[in-house]
């Protein structure tokens, strides 16, 4: 059993942050890795990226958006409540080195993961440019934390309620046009955002890493449910990823695969409400 020591509602109750006691995971977790969470005995196993960790306090931070039954159930948990199973840290850590100038692009809850990777890149001595976006101001998370870490930060919202109006790809294009020293782009967010970022960086031939979030069960390479096509080869996101060269990922396929259980998700949510 794993205790929730801190709960914070980050955006209108739809994005939630948990700090969970998991000393063994906290001691090992690196940026880019994830945990699998099962809330209770009848729960499903869902992957959630480790947004931060505190090895000294023995806690890990997860940030999730409420989208389905399990995340709705997690929102109802309070500080001090217990989560049945948390296993990790899974997946390969992000490959962090000092490459010079990097652009970190994040959208929606993706910023939660991005912020952990950004921290690592900053600590490695890179010049970090951050671009984060959300649908509207209230859904934007971790802006202050990102601003503290990044050498430059651009904020966008789809409706223009905060920062620049539009998508993260617009400021990204501007940077790619203006600066010639960008060595790497890291994009974490909704599939469509990562796809658009990759289409853009491909034109400028800038290496781009993305962090994928397919459906998973065990997270240890056993089920193969998380398989993604990278460079026309099947890769298991849980053991070969979750970070991949974005230019080689088949995003359309990933999007469709993630939608397989939309009907069941609704059914499950309805069942739990009843």
């Amino acid at each position, binding site marked *: 059993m794993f205790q929730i020591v801190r709960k914070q509602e980050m955006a209108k109750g739809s994005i939630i942050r948990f700090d969970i006691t998991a000393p063994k995971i906290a001691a090992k977790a690196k940026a880019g890795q994830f945990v699998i969470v099962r809330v209770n005995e009848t729960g499903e196993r869902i992957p959630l990226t480790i947004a931060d960790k505190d090895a000294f306090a023995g806690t890990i931070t997860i940030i999730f958006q409420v989208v389905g039954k399990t995340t709705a159930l997690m929102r109802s948990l309070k500080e001090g409540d217990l989560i049945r199973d948390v*296993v*990790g840290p899974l997946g390969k850590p992000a490959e962090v080195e000092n490459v010079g100038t990097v652009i970190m692009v994040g959208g929606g809850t993706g910023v939660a993961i991005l912020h952990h990777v950004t921290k690592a890149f900053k600590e490695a001595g890179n010049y970090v440019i951050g671009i984060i976006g959300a649908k509207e101001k209230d859904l934007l998370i971790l802006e202050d934390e990102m601003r503290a870490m990044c050498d430059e930060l651009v904020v966008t919202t789809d409706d223009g309620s905060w920062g620049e109006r539009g998508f993260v790809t617009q400021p990204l294009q501007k940077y790619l046009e203006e600066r010639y020293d960008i060595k790497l782009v890291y994009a974490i967010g909704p599939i469509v955002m990562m796809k658009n970022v990759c289409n853009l960086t491909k034109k400028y031939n800038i290496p781009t890493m993305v962090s994928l979030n397919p459906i998973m069960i065990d997270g240890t390479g056993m089920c193969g449910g998380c398989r993604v096509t990278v460079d026309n080869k099947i890769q298991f996101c849980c*053991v070969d990823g979750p970070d991949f060269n974005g230019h080689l990922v088949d995003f359309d*396929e990933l999007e*469709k695969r993630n939608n397989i259980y939309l009907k069941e998700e609704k059914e499950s949510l309805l069942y739990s409400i009843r």
Partner: protein
Amino acid sequence: MFEQDVKYLKFKTYLNAYCPHCKNTFNVERKDNKWLEFKAKYKGEEIDLKLSPYLDVFDIESSVPIAEGDMVDDFLCPRCKKSLISTEIKCGECGSPVAEVIIAVFSKLIPFFICMKHGCTWHGISKADENKIKLKIPRQEMPEQDQKLRTTNFMEVPYGYTSELATLEAGRCLQCKNPKCVEGCPVNIDIPAFIRLIAEEKFDEAAKKIKERNILPAICGRVCPQETQCEAKCIMGVRDKPVAIGNLERFVADYERKMDLVKVPVIKNKINKRIAVVGSGPAGLTVAADLQQLGYQVTIFEALHELGGVLVYGIPEFRLPKSIVAFEIDYLRKLGVKFELNTVVGKTVTIDELLQHFHAVFIGVGAGLPTFMNIEGETLGNIFSANEYLTRMNLMKAYRFPEYDTPKPRGNKVVVIGGGNVAMDAARTAIRSGASEVTIVYRRSRQELPARHEEIRHAEEEGVKFMLLTNPVRYIGTDQRMVKAMECIRMKLGEPDSSGRRRPIPIEGSNFIIETDLVVVAIGTGPNPVIFQTNPDLKRNKWGYLEVNPETMETSKEFVYAGGDIVTGSATVILAMGAGRIAANAIHKKLSQLP
């Protein structure tokens, strides 16, 4: 018929005895009183004899008293008055002459001998004839859930033997002096000994006998491929069907559990050394049990949230009830084994960290990486690895969706690729979850199907179709990238390959398309990379599995041992247990030399 069979094996058969000369019957039946009636000559006089008509009760009543140890001069048929004394056979106990009558057992006539010396209780049939009788007993099949009914639930299909059926089946064992079945068993259970104990109705002792060699009989009795192991070597199998060793094993284990006879041994000799076991599947459980009983302190690390490895995520409830696995694991817990769930060795802790705290490490993580065929369309929606499909249904209990949160894979026309036990499990699970049509597609012919015969039979009974000598070449998807059809090619069998099975060869131009909306790929697994990512120093063989010394199961790293599928590739529960046993002995030997 059934009653009489049982009586025979309890050695209480009511004898139907006949005169070998005139075929007159000696049986007399009045009210509740039955006996065999003879004439005999004693001290020159003709007297009447009455014998009890049961094989195991030997009472003689005579019209004149006969002194103990005296010899009756002759046995006569009351009708033809001819002597019944055998010219060939002498009493097995005292060497006196014996009377020979004919008895009917299983509608077969067999000579039966009675010692002439009064007081000597030797009677019976010769060993050769006993074996002939045993051949006449048909192999007893387990009662099973109704074929229609069982496709609607996930409860276990065979109910198991009753004690009557078990004793009857045990009676078929020839008790060979040089038993071949033991050679066929990967853990060398003393099979004739435990079967003999069943025949004597000492079920409790039989269970103990098995447990000397195998700690998980309830599981092995259900999932071992007996027909290629112990039962393949059974001498009964040459003339008739082999003794149902697996069913008997299952029976005694169930009996012991249900009658609450399982006793946790007290471990007297404590050894102050710690062992880490990685993976709670069959190999890990065996190592843990063996070493804990020797006095070591064992901790099992499991990546999933439940213990049992393949026994809980892979093998479905209807083949191996989860309660049985839980019971066996509880036994280990009572022995003092500690368990650490949700711990991925290689991620949460590494082998090197374990070696700092433990004196030895055993790796039994299985070969949990599903293999795909790498053909077009394999990432379409509703194409699953067998691991994913079964994990969803078994471990996550998706068949009870939405009560359990994990979504149940939806499919009406299900295709399962592969012909092993896992393929059968997936197909039978699909039938139970409401698919209207389930087809197994296998590239070789029926003979080569690697699944247990029982699983194939069950699958067929439940309506699974077999499309043999067929292989998929690509999958066709809908606009939503869900699978809607599969293109297949017909195969023929060529020369035997390295595995000894005939190599399947595609027949050019024989392609055809079958409709399907759910595909399960059950073509085997490969080595899981997780443990190697943090321990590249563990030497691997050319297939990517762990390389071990076959005599000790020690890996290239000292004090690190391994066994089960991570060494051999996909194999069976019992082979993993056999490897675990070797490793446990080797670990004990090595650690005993340490101060």
